[in-house]
Protein backbone atom coordinates (compact mmCIF):
# COMPACT_ATOMS: atom_id res chain seq x y z
CA UNK A 1 0.00 0.00 0.00
CA UNK A 2 1.06 3.59 -0.55
CA UNK A 3 2.24 5.34 2.58
CA UNK A 4 -0.35 7.99 3.19
CA UNK A 5 -0.70 9.72 6.49
CA UNK A 6 -4.27 10.34 7.61
CA UNK A 7 -5.70 12.38 10.43
CA UNK A 8 -7.31 10.16 13.03
CA UNK A 9 -10.84 11.08 12.04
CA UNK A 10 -10.08 10.69 8.33
CA UNK A 11 -8.70 7.19 8.92
CA UNK A 12 -11.75 6.29 10.96
CA UNK A 13 -14.09 7.57 8.21
CA UNK A 14 -12.40 5.33 5.65
CA UNK A 15 -12.51 2.26 7.88
CA UNK A 16 -16.17 2.84 8.75
CA UNK A 17 -17.03 3.22 5.07
CA UNK A 18 -15.17 0.07 4.03
CA UNK A 19 -16.69 -1.89 6.91
CA UNK A 20 -20.18 -0.83 5.86
CA UNK A 21 -19.45 -1.87 2.26
CA UNK A 22 -17.94 -5.17 3.40
CA UNK A 23 -20.99 -5.96 5.57
CA UNK A 24 -23.28 -5.39 2.64
CA UNK A 25 -21.10 -7.25 0.16
CA UNK A 26 -20.85 -10.26 2.44
CA UNK A 27 -24.58 -10.63 1.94
CA UNK A 28 -24.18 -10.44 -1.83
CA UNK A 29 -23.94 -13.74 -3.63
CA UNK A 30 -22.31 -12.64 -6.85
CA UNK A 31 -19.24 -10.67 -5.77
CA UNK A 32 -16.08 -11.26 -3.77
CA UNK A 33 -16.38 -8.89 -0.79
CA UNK A 34 -12.67 -8.87 0.02
CA UNK A 35 -11.71 -8.15 -3.57
CA UNK A 36 -14.09 -5.20 -3.85
CA UNK A 37 -13.01 -3.72 -0.53
CA UNK A 38 -9.35 -3.95 -1.57
CA UNK A 39 -10.16 -2.28 -4.89
CA UNK A 40 -12.04 0.48 -3.08
CA UNK A 41 -9.15 1.00 -0.67
CA UNK A 42 -6.78 1.24 -3.61
CA UNK A 43 -9.11 3.75 -5.28
CA UNK A 44 -9.29 5.91 -2.15
CA UNK A 45 -5.51 5.89 -1.75
CA UNK A 46 -4.99 6.71 -5.41
CA UNK A 47 -7.39 9.66 -5.14
CA UNK A 48 -5.73 10.96 -2.00
CA UNK A 49 -2.13 10.43 -3.08
CA UNK A 50 -1.73 14.02 -4.23
CA UNK A 51 -3.32 15.88 -1.34
CA UNK A 52 -1.60 17.53 1.61
CA UNK A 53 -0.80 15.14 4.43
CA UNK A 54 -1.98 14.26 6.95
CA UNK A 55 -5.10 13.79 4.88
CA UNK A 56 -8.02 15.70 6.37
CA UNK A 57 -11.54 14.47 6.99
CA UNK A 58 -12.82 16.89 4.32
CA UNK A 59 -10.57 15.33 1.65
CA UNK A 60 -11.70 11.84 2.60
CA UNK A 61 -15.32 12.92 2.62
CA UNK A 62 -14.98 14.31 -0.91
CA UNK A 63 -13.61 10.99 -2.20
CA UNK A 64 -16.19 8.89 -0.34
CA UNK A 65 -18.99 11.05 -1.70
CA UNK A 66 -17.81 10.35 -5.24
CA UNK A 67 -17.71 6.64 -4.47
CA UNK A 68 -21.28 6.85 -3.20
CA UNK A 69 -22.91 5.61 0.01
CA UNK A 70 -22.40 1.89 0.82
CA UNK A 71 -26.05 1.08 0.13
CA UNK A 72 -25.66 2.51 -3.37
CA UNK A 73 -22.38 0.71 -4.04
CA UNK A 74 -23.90 -2.69 -3.35
CA UNK A 75 -26.82 -3.89 -5.40
CA UNK A 76 -29.39 -5.43 -3.05
CA UNK A 77 -30.88 -7.33 -5.97
CA UNK A 78 -28.04 -9.83 -5.58
CA UNK A 79 -29.07 -10.71 -2.02
CA UNK A 80 -31.51 -13.30 -0.83
CA UNK A 81 -34.57 -11.91 1.00
CA UNK A 82 -33.46 -13.14 4.42
CA UNK A 83 -30.01 -11.61 4.05
CA UNK A 84 -31.60 -8.30 3.07
CA UNK A 85 -33.81 -8.48 6.15
CA UNK A 86 -30.92 -9.20 8.51
CA UNK A 87 -28.86 -6.48 6.88
CA UNK A 88 -31.60 -3.92 7.26
CA UNK A 89 -32.07 -4.82 10.88
CA UNK A 90 -28.35 -4.46 11.51
CA UNK A 91 -27.49 -1.47 9.40
CA UNK A 92 -30.47 0.47 8.23
CA UNK A 93 -32.01 3.49 9.89
CA UNK A 94 -34.46 3.22 12.73
CA UNK A 95 -37.52 3.42 10.48
CA UNK A 96 -36.57 0.11 8.82
CA UNK A 97 -35.55 -1.60 12.05
CA UNK A 98 -38.75 -0.57 13.76
CA UNK A 99 -40.83 -1.62 10.77
CA UNK A 100 -39.33 -5.13 10.70
CA UNK A 101 -39.57 -5.35 14.47
CA UNK A 102 -43.23 -4.35 14.32
CA UNK A 103 -44.14 -7.14 11.92
CA UNK A 104 -42.04 -9.64 13.87
CA UNK A 105 -43.72 -8.71 17.14
CA UNK A 106 -47.15 -8.83 15.50
CA UNK A 107 -46.58 -12.40 14.29
CA UNK A 108 -44.56 -13.95 17.09
CA UNK A 109 -45.67 -11.65 19.91
CA UNK A 110 -49.33 -12.37 19.19
CA UNK A 111 -48.65 -16.11 19.13
CA UNK A 112 -46.90 -15.90 22.48
CA UNK A 113 -48.75 -13.13 24.29
CA UNK A 114 -52.06 -12.70 22.45
CA UNK A 115 -53.45 -9.15 22.41
CA UNK A 116 -50.34 -7.80 24.13
CA UNK A 117 -48.36 -8.68 21.00
CA UNK A 118 -50.75 -6.66 18.85
CA UNK A 119 -50.53 -3.67 21.20
CA UNK A 120 -46.72 -3.82 21.30
CA UNK A 121 -46.58 -4.11 17.51
CA UNK A 122 -48.95 -1.14 17.19
CA UNK A 123 -46.68 1.10 19.26
CA UNK A 124 -43.64 -0.04 17.25
CA UNK A 125 -45.49 0.82 14.03
CA UNK A 126 -46.36 4.26 15.35
CA UNK A 127 -42.72 4.76 16.33
CA UNK A 128 -41.65 3.68 12.83
CA UNK A 129 -44.07 6.22 11.36
CA UNK A 130 -42.62 8.94 13.56
CA UNK A 131 -39.04 8.37 12.45
CA UNK A 132 -39.86 7.65 8.79
CA UNK A 133 -38.48 10.08 6.22
CA UNK A 134 -41.87 10.36 4.55
CA UNK A 135 -45.24 10.86 6.23
CA UNK A 136 -46.66 7.69 4.65
CA UNK A 137 -43.58 5.57 3.89
CA UNK A 138 -44.39 3.45 0.82
CA UNK A 139 -41.53 1.00 1.28
CA UNK A 140 -42.35 0.06 4.87
CA UNK A 141 -46.13 0.07 4.65
CA UNK A 142 -46.47 -3.71 4.35
CA UNK A 143 -44.47 -4.09 7.53
CA UNK A 144 -46.17 -1.48 9.68
CA UNK A 145 -49.73 -1.37 8.35
CA UNK A 146 -51.01 -4.75 9.63
CA UNK A 147 -50.90 -3.85 13.33
CA UNK A 148 -52.12 -0.30 12.62
CA UNK A 149 -55.14 -1.60 10.70
CA UNK A 150 -56.04 -4.12 13.41
CA UNK A 151 -55.83 -1.59 16.26
CA UNK A 152 -57.49 1.27 14.33
CA UNK A 153 -60.33 -1.04 13.31
CA UNK A 154 -60.93 -2.01 16.94
CA UNK A 155 -60.65 1.58 18.18
CA UNK A 156 -62.89 2.81 15.38
CA UNK A 157 -65.49 0.12 15.94
CA UNK A 158 -65.61 0.53 19.70
CA UNK A 159 -65.20 4.31 19.58
CA UNK A 160 -68.06 4.78 17.15
CA UNK A 161 -70.52 2.19 18.39
CA UNK A 162 -70.11 1.93 22.16
CA UNK A 163 -73.13 4.19 22.95
CA UNK A 164 -75.36 1.91 20.88
CA UNK A 165 -74.34 -1.04 22.98
CA UNK A 166 -74.48 0.69 26.35
CA UNK A 167 -77.72 2.62 25.88
CA UNK A 168 -79.39 -0.12 23.84
CA UNK A 169 -78.64 -2.69 26.55
CA UNK A 170 -79.76 -0.33 29.31
CA UNK A 171 -83.07 0.61 27.70
CA UNK A 172 -83.71 -2.99 26.66
CA UNK A 173 -83.16 -4.10 30.20
CA UNK A 174 -85.44 -1.40 31.56
CA UNK A 175 -88.06 -2.40 29.03
CA UNK A 176 -88.09 -5.94 30.35
CA UNK A 177 -88.96 -4.58 33.77
CA UNK A 178 -85.67 -5.41 35.41
CA UNK A 179 -84.46 -1.87 35.67
CA UNK A 180 -84.20 -0.44 39.10
CA UNK A 181 -85.49 3.09 38.34
CA UNK A 182 -88.51 2.27 36.24
CA UNK A 183 -89.18 -1.20 37.59
CA UNK A 184 -92.86 -0.75 38.20
CA UNK A 185 -93.70 1.56 35.40
CA UNK A 186 -96.15 -0.25 33.06
CA UNK A 187 -94.86 1.87 30.21
CA UNK A 188 -91.74 -0.29 30.06
CA UNK A 189 -93.53 -3.51 30.63
CA UNK A 190 -93.12 -5.00 27.18
CA UNK A 191 -91.32 -7.97 25.74
CA UNK A 192 -90.47 -9.44 22.31
CA UNK A 193 -90.76 -6.86 19.55
CA UNK A 194 -91.10 -4.10 22.09
CA UNK A 195 -87.70 -4.93 23.52
CA UNK A 196 -86.12 -4.88 20.07
CA UNK A 197 -87.62 -1.46 19.44
CA UNK A 198 -86.45 -0.27 22.85
CA UNK A 199 -82.91 -1.39 22.10
CA UNK A 200 -83.01 0.33 18.70
CA UNK A 201 -84.40 3.52 20.17
CA UNK A 202 -81.89 3.61 23.01
CA UNK A 203 -78.99 2.68 20.76
CA UNK A 204 -80.00 5.16 18.05
CA UNK A 205 -80.36 7.99 20.56
CA UNK A 206 -77.06 7.15 22.18
CA UNK A 207 -75.29 7.10 18.81
CA UNK A 208 -76.89 10.37 17.74
CA UNK A 209 -75.70 12.16 20.84
CA UNK A 210 -72.22 10.62 20.71
CA UNK A 211 -71.73 11.30 17.01
CA UNK A 212 -72.93 14.86 17.42
CA UNK A 213 -70.11 15.26 19.90
CA UNK A 214 -67.68 13.60 17.49
CA UNK A 215 -68.90 15.87 14.73
CA UNK A 216 -68.14 18.95 16.82
CA UNK A 217 -64.67 17.63 17.70
CA UNK A 218 -63.94 16.52 14.14
CA UNK A 219 -65.02 19.83 12.63
CA UNK A 220 -63.20 22.05 15.10
CA UNK A 221 -60.11 19.92 15.77
CA UNK A 222 -59.48 17.56 12.80
CA UNK A 223 -55.85 17.33 13.87
CA UNK A 224 -56.95 15.05 16.75
CA UNK A 225 -58.28 12.52 14.25
CA UNK A 226 -55.28 12.89 11.96
CA UNK A 227 -52.90 12.18 14.83
CA UNK A 228 -55.04 9.36 16.26
CA UNK A 229 -55.35 7.52 12.93
CA UNK A 230 -52.00 8.24 11.30
CA UNK A 231 -51.31 7.76 8.39
CA UNK A 232 -54.77 6.85 7.11
CA UNK A 233 -56.41 10.12 8.20
CA UNK A 234 -53.53 12.39 7.11
CA UNK A 235 -55.64 14.07 4.47
CA UNK A 236 -58.84 14.35 6.49
CA UNK A 237 -60.22 17.83 6.78
CA UNK A 238 -62.82 19.01 9.27
CA UNK A 239 -65.27 19.44 6.38
CA UNK A 240 -64.82 15.90 5.04
CA UNK A 241 -65.15 14.40 8.49
CA UNK A 242 -68.17 16.58 9.23
CA UNK A 243 -69.96 15.43 6.08
CA UNK A 244 -69.30 11.76 6.79
CA UNK A 245 -70.49 11.94 10.37
CA UNK A 246 -73.50 14.04 9.42
CA UNK A 247 -74.75 11.47 6.90
CA UNK A 248 -74.28 8.55 9.28
CA UNK A 249 -75.71 10.58 12.15
CA UNK A 250 -78.81 11.47 10.10
CA UNK A 251 -79.48 7.84 9.19
CA UNK A 252 -79.00 6.68 12.77
CA UNK A 253 -81.17 9.44 14.17
CA UNK A 254 -83.97 8.50 11.74
CA UNK A 255 -83.67 4.87 12.83
CA UNK A 256 -83.70 5.81 16.51
CA UNK A 257 -86.67 8.18 16.22
CA UNK A 258 -88.72 5.68 14.16
CA UNK A 259 -87.97 2.92 16.63
CA UNK A 260 -88.85 5.18 19.56
CA UNK A 261 -92.18 6.16 17.99
CA UNK A 262 -93.08 2.54 17.27
CA UNK A 263 -91.99 1.52 20.76
CA UNK A 264 -94.24 4.13 22.38
CA UNK A 265 -97.20 2.90 20.32
CA UNK A 266 -96.73 -0.77 21.17
Amino acid at each position, binding site marked *: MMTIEYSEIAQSSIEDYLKAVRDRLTASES*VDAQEVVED*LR*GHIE*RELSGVTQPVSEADVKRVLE*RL*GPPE*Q*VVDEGDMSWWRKTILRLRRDPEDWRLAYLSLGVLIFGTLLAGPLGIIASFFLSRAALSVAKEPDPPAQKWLIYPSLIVVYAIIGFVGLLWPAYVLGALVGELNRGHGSLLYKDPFFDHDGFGTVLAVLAGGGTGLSVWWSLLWVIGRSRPVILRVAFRPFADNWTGRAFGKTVLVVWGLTACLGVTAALLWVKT
Partner: protein
Amino acid sequence: MDDFLTNWVTQLRKGILEFCVLKVLEDASLYGYDIVRQLRTLEVLVISEGTIYPILSRLRREGLLSTYLEESPEGPARKYYQLTNRGKDMLGKMRGVWTAMSQGIDNARGTKGKP
Protein backbone atom coordinates in the same frame (compact mmCIF):
# COMPACT_ATOMS: atom_id res chain seq x y z
CA MET B 1 -37.16 11.80 -8.55
CA ASP B 2 -40.35 9.84 -9.03
CA ASP B 3 -40.09 6.28 -7.64
CA PHE B 4 -40.98 4.66 -10.95
CA LEU B 5 -38.40 6.67 -12.85
CA THR B 6 -35.76 5.96 -10.19
CA ASN B 7 -36.32 2.20 -10.51
CA TRP B 8 -36.35 2.39 -14.27
CA VAL B 9 -33.08 4.36 -14.41
CA THR B 10 -31.49 1.95 -11.89
CA GLN B 11 -32.37 -1.09 -13.98
CA LEU B 12 -31.27 0.58 -17.19
CA ARG B 13 -28.01 1.81 -15.68
CA LYS B 14 -27.10 -1.60 -14.25
CA GLY B 15 -27.13 -3.43 -17.57
CA ILE B 16 -25.51 -0.65 -19.56
CA LEU B 17 -22.70 -0.17 -17.03
CA GLU B 18 -21.66 -3.82 -17.39
CA PHE B 19 -21.61 -3.35 -21.15
CA CYS B 20 -19.54 -0.16 -20.78
CA VAL B 21 -17.02 -1.82 -18.46
CA LEU B 22 -16.43 -4.58 -21.01
CA LYS B 23 -16.21 -2.00 -23.77
CA VAL B 24 -13.60 0.08 -21.90
CA LEU B 25 -11.46 -3.06 -21.56
CA GLU B 26 -11.83 -4.02 -25.21
CA ASP B 27 -8.57 -2.48 -26.38
CA ALA B 28 -6.42 -2.47 -23.28
CA SER B 29 -5.96 -3.96 -19.84
CA LEU B 30 -6.60 -1.39 -17.13
CA TYR B 31 -6.47 -1.31 -13.39
CA GLY B 32 -9.60 -0.49 -11.39
CA TYR B 33 -8.94 3.19 -10.81
CA ASP B 34 -8.30 3.81 -14.53
CA ILE B 35 -11.52 2.01 -15.46
CA VAL B 36 -13.43 4.29 -13.11
CA ARG B 37 -11.68 7.36 -14.52
CA GLN B 38 -12.65 6.40 -18.05
CA LEU B 39 -16.25 5.82 -17.06
CA ARG B 40 -16.43 9.11 -15.13
CA THR B 41 -17.21 10.85 -18.38
CA LEU B 42 -20.53 8.96 -18.53
CA GLU B 43 -22.05 11.07 -15.76
CA VAL B 44 -25.59 9.86 -16.38
CA LEU B 45 -24.48 6.27 -15.86
CA VAL B 46 -21.88 6.56 -13.11
CA ILE B 47 -23.65 8.33 -10.27
CA SER B 48 -21.47 6.59 -7.68
CA GLU B 49 -17.98 5.56 -8.72
CA GLY B 50 -17.99 2.81 -6.11
CA THR B 51 -20.57 0.84 -8.08
CA ILE B 52 -17.93 -0.05 -10.69
CA TYR B 53 -15.93 -2.29 -8.35
CA PRO B 54 -18.70 -4.81 -7.55
CA ILE B 55 -19.37 -4.97 -11.29
CA LEU B 56 -15.71 -5.79 -11.95
CA SER B 57 -15.84 -8.50 -9.29
CA ARG B 58 -19.05 -9.96 -10.71
CA LEU B 59 -17.73 -9.97 -14.26
CA ARG B 60 -14.56 -11.69 -13.06
CA ARG B 61 -16.59 -14.34 -11.26
CA GLU B 62 -18.62 -14.85 -14.41
CA GLY B 63 -15.40 -15.52 -16.30
CA LEU B 64 -15.74 -12.47 -18.54
CA LEU B 65 -12.71 -10.74 -16.99
CA SER B 66 -9.44 -11.96 -15.56
CA THR B 67 -6.88 -10.14 -13.44
CA TYR B 68 -3.12 -10.03 -13.13
CA LEU B 69 -0.73 -8.07 -10.94
CA GLU B 70 1.85 -5.66 -12.33
CA GLU B 71 4.51 -3.73 -10.46
CA SER B 72 3.92 0.00 -10.16
CA PRO B 73 6.61 2.64 -9.72
CA GLU B 74 4.24 4.54 -7.40
CA GLY B 75 3.75 1.81 -4.85
CA PRO B 76 2.63 -1.79 -4.54
CA ALA B 77 1.68 -4.00 -7.46
CA ARG B 78 -1.55 -3.02 -9.22
CA LYS B 79 -4.29 -5.40 -10.20
CA TYR B 80 -5.13 -5.12 -13.88
CA TYR B 81 -8.36 -6.31 -15.45
CA GLN B 82 -8.55 -7.74 -18.96
CA LEU B 83 -11.18 -9.38 -21.11
CA THR B 84 -11.14 -13.16 -21.32
CA ASN B 85 -12.06 -14.89 -24.58
CA ARG B 86 -15.53 -15.43 -23.13
CA GLY B 87 -15.64 -11.73 -22.25
CA LYS B 88 -14.71 -10.74 -25.82
CA ASP B 89 -17.36 -13.06 -27.17
CA MET B 90 -19.94 -11.68 -24.73
CA LEU B 91 -19.05 -8.08 -25.61
CA GLY B 92 -19.68 -8.87 -29.29
CA LYS B 93 -23.07 -10.35 -28.47
CA MET B 94 -23.97 -7.44 -26.19
CA ARG B 95 -23.00 -4.99 -28.88
CA GLY B 96 -25.30 -6.82 -31.31
CA VAL B 97 -28.20 -6.62 -28.84
CA TRP B 98 -27.47 -2.95 -28.17
CA THR B 99 -27.49 -2.12 -31.90
CA ALA B 100 -30.71 -4.05 -32.45
CA MET B 101 -32.35 -2.32 -29.49
CA SER B 102 -31.25 1.14 -30.60
CA GLN B 103 -32.55 0.52 -34.11
CA GLY B 104 -35.76 -0.97 -32.71
CA ILE B 105 -36.35 2.09 -30.54
CA ASP B 106 -35.62 4.38 -33.50
CA ASN B 107 -38.04 2.44 -35.69
CA ALA B 108 -40.75 2.60 -33.01
CA ARG B 109 -40.81 6.38 -33.02
CA GLY B 110 -43.91 8.13 -31.75
CA THR B 111 -46.05 10.31 -33.93
CA LYS B 112 -44.09 13.39 -32.88
CA GLY B 113 -40.79 11.85 -33.96
CA LYS B 114 -39.49 11.47 -30.40
CA PRO B 115 -37.72 8.23 -29.35
